[in-house]
Every structure is written in structure tokens, then in C-alpha cells.
């Protein structure tokens, strides 16, 4: 079987462990790819807008060596939940029409395809700017985990509640719940587990997760690109990685 071809790619944070010991040094790698198969992304400060960790004691920037993978290194200082956040600056992507249309279908962005069709642009190449809003949830030691506060990214998946076999998240766009957007959950080690749900009126999604292990929840928001950007569309890629 040939590998499935996607034309726009997921972006996620892959820590060396999701359950670090207090005091441990861990790496937080950045990955671009699809289906959990990622290429390492080296630390590139020209693209990073924010790369930090939020835990009980506040926010700390994540250090790392420029041009090297893993992009981030972090010491876990306190027990409890910690969220690693990565926000990129916008980058430009141009795709031929058939690839862009396929990407819109893959990411549940049919409403953009409909607008393009209405404007007679379906056969035209796309000019897009995109940026990343990646998060990773770490649990250190046995401390109480509290992680339902948003980091304040423009597009964000916020974990609300996690049980042994389910997770509830809320999708926020510019700090407001976003309804009707496609949200996907993917198990890292079991390619058959690909769950797709649209968010409810409150931007909420609940996934029944049939298997323990490492998961990614992702969603793409697309809007008209701002004037002066020389692009028609702007996409925001949110991801959340965690271990159940």
C-alpha cells in the first residue's frame, strides 16, 4: 500500500516523555508530518513566536540550540500538570488547485471550497499563510493536574477533562468557542484509531478514546487572509499531544 498523500501537514510537539519525574530534564521536539510520522523540525528562532511551558509557577521560555533537533529542552521543576506551547510566525504556502482542494477536503474545510467555487477560483492555485499553535500536555509526579486554562493562542485546543478512556476539549478561535469545526484524534501507535468529530455549539468535543497511549488532537481553522498579506487564505493549525 502506498503512503497516503496529504498536501498540508500536521505539526506537533513530541516530548521525550509525557510523564516526567520532578527535576528531570526532558526534550520537546517539534515534528511536521502526517499520521504521526514526522520530520524533525530544528529550532529556528526566525519562525518561533512563542515557545514556552506553563506550570503551577507560571510561564517559562523553553531553551534550545539554534538549528538543532530537539528544538526545546526543559527541566520539570514542580509536580503537577504542565503545558508546553509553541506558536509560530506565519509562513507562506502556495499549492496548485487540485492539491489545495484535496487539503480542504482532508481538513473538513468544505466551506472554504464552497467559497472558492462561488468565486470561480476552484481551478486557481492557492496563496495561503499558515501558522502553528501546538501544545503538549505533561504530567509530572503525582500532583494535581490543572490544565483547562487556555494559553492564549489565536487558535487553540484546550483540554477540559480527561478520564481513563475519554477526553473533552474545547476549540477556541480568538479566545471564543468555535462551533462546527472538524477535530481529529489520532493514536500514535495504532493507525486504525482516527476519530473525527465536529465541535458543538460551545466549541466542545468529547472523544471516547478506546486505547491508552499517546494521542494527538488536531484541528485547522481557515479564514480570509488579512489585507497586505498577498494571500487569499490564512490557516491556523492547532494540535494537542498527550498521553492517556
Amino acid at each position: 500500500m502506498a503512503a497516503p498523500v496529504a498536501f498540508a501537514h500536521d505539526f506537533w510537539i513530541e516530548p521525550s516523555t509525557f510523564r516526567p519525574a520532578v527535576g528531570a530534564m526532558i526534550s520537546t521536539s517539534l515534528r511536521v508530518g502526517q499520521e504521526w510520522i514526522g520530520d524533525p523540525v530544528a529550532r529556528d528562532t526566525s519562525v518561533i513566536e512563542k515557545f514556552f511551558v506553563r506550570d503551577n509557577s507560571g510561564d517559562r521560555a523553553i531553551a534550545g540550540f539554534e538549528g538543532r533537533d530537539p528544538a526545546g529542552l526543559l527541566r520539570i521543576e514542580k509536580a503537577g500538570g504542565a503545558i508546553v506551547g509553541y506558536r509560530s510566525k506565519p509562513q507562506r504556502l502556495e499549492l496548485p488547485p487540485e492539491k489545495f482542494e484535496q487539503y480542504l477536503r482532508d481538513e473538513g474545510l468544505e466551506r472554504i471550497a464552497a467559497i472558492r467555487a462561488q468565486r470561480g477560483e476552484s481551478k486557481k492555485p492557492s496563496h495561503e499563510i499558515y501558522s502553528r499553535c501546538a501544545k503538549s500536555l505533561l504530567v509530572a509526579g503525582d500532583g494535581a493536574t490543572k490544565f483547562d486554562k487556555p494559553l492564549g493562542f489565536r487558535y487553540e485546543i484546550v483540554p477540559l477533562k480527561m478520564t481513563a478512556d475519554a477526553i473533552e476539549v474545547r476549540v477556541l478561535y480568538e479566545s471564543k468557542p468555535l462551533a462546527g469545526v472538524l477535530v481529529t484524534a489520532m493514536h500514535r501507535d495504532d493507525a486504525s484509531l482516527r476519530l473525527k468529530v465536529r465541535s458543538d455549539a460551545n466549541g466542545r468535543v468529547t472523544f471516547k478514546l478506546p486505547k491508552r497511549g499517546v494521542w494527538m488532537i488536531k484541528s485547522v481553522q481557515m479564514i480570509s487572509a488579512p489585507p497586505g498579506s498577498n494571500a487569499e487564505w490564512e490557516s491556523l493549525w492547532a494540535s494537542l499531544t498527550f498521553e492517556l
Partner: protein
Amino acid sequence: MNAKCKMQNAKLACLFAFCILHFAFAVIASAHEIGTTRVDATFKRDHTYAVTVFASPDAIKKRLHGDAIEKHVFIEFNGNRVVPHAELTPTGIRLTGEIPLHADAFTWRYDLTYSSYVLMLENESHGATRQWLEGDGMSTPFVLARDVVPPTRLQVVGQYLALGFTHIVPRGLDHILFVLGLFLLTTRIKPLLAQVTSFTLAHSITLGLTMYGVVSLPSKIVEPAIALSIAYVAIENIVTSELKPWRVAIVFAFGLLHGMGFAGVLRELGLPRREFVTALVSFNAGVEGGQLFVIGVAAILFARKWRHRVVVPASLVIAATGLFWTVQRLIG
């Protein structure tokens, strides 16, 4: 403030706002994130290419989904796809193959990475250039240097004829002296023909056999022996002007040695894999041409009438040189 001034201010404000917006969305030009993948493509003067992909073999394996690597790499010369020999290595993928005849340009694409990566392209000993590629994007054509593209058969013939010829004239003073030694024995055509034929036959045999790896002698032995052969023919010229029966046999034996010497040179020059025999035969023919040229020039310079006068002094010089080289090559 008059109306004109107001308008100007409004224009300036607009321009300022535009600049701010433009700056705010001064997006980075690369399309996908820059990964740690790197691809090196080298085009060598032995007319082969090697493409090395530096990436995690685990990720590559996962993306292959059991497919052969060849299915996911698109190597093209002049727009024609070629299938390389592919292997997975601890640092990624290695692809190798022969550069096709008449190739001018190379293009590359593969679909096993999703990040932007750098493709380094290098014509051997001509320096490298690089291109940034987008995931599964196609590179722009890379122009191949002339010396990495395999020559046509006709080019091989011309090139190796010339190499063979110049190996004698002007580069091979030792061979020139040997041939002169053969020439100086007698003024008659027949003995000269017998010697030259015997020498040619012998050096063709060992040149071929050595190049095919059938026989081999270290140059430490071959080179002094060649020098000694020069001294021998010259000394014999002083002693006799008859073609003794053993002379042809000895010349044949020396020919065997000279053939190994030619092979040493040819090996240094290198033979095109695809046109091995063509090059070998052409080189031998070139050597032959060089020898005939030496004899021709000698025949003009030393007219029959007074040749007997130069035989002894010339042979003495040749013999001395031969002996000197023998010692020099033995020591060196």
C-alpha cells in the same frame, strides 16, 4: 491647514498603515517548516551518481509502508526517469547509478519527507550548489559538468587514441628510446618489421591481461626492467647489426613488460566502464601510432646512407640512459 495639505497627510497615513500591515505579515518565504533532512547529490567523473538522503531511517520505513524505496524517488536525466540502486542505511537512504549517455540535466524529487529541506548538488571537483525544496517538490534542473557525463563511443575512441599516442610522444621518453633501439639495429625493413610486430603483439597481450586483472607485476619490478630492456637493445646494437633469432624473442619478452607499464598508466587515467574494450583497444592503437611516428621521424632524420655512423654513438647514449634509469628506478 489647507485642503491640499490634508490630502497629503491622509496619503501619508495610508502609506504608513500599509507599511505596518505589510510588515506585520512579512511572512517567511519557505513553505513548510525546515526539517533536519538533507539530500546530497554528487555526480562523479567515473560517470556515476550518488544521492544520499540524511533522515531518520525509522520515519522513512514507516512512510514506505512496505514499498520499495525506488518507487518513491524520482531521479530524472533530461526528463527521463531512471531507477537507481537503493539501500536503507543507518543515516537514511543511499541511491546510486550510472549517469546515462547524453545527459545534460538532473532533477530530483522524493515523497518521503514533509518538511522543507536542502538539496546539495555537486559535479565532482566543480563545487556545489544548493536548492531549497519543499517536501515532495521537484528540484529545478541541475546542469551536469561535461566530465561527469559518459562520452560516446566515438569520443572514447578519439580520447584514448590521443592518450595512447601522447603516452609515447612526447611523454614516454623510455618507450621512445626503446623503439629507437629497435630501429637502430639494422637498415633493413624486414628485421625492423619483425621486431616491431613482436613488440606490439607482446605489449597488447599484457596490456589487456593486466587491465582485466589476469596478470599483475608490481611497478617496482616492471619499471626497472623496462629501463634495463632499453639498455639491452642498445648494447646489442653496438655488438651486432644482425637480427639474431633470440632478438625477436627477447623483444617479445620486453614487450610483455612494456605492456604492463602501459597498463599502469592506463589504470591511472581510468577507463570508462561502459566502453572498456573500446578504450583499451584505442589506447593500444594510440601507443602503436606513437611508436610508428617515432620510427618514421627517425627514418627521416637518420637517412640510410649514414645511419651506420650514428648507430654506435646513439646506442651508447641510449644504453647509458637505460642503465642510469635502471639504477634510478631500483633505488627510487
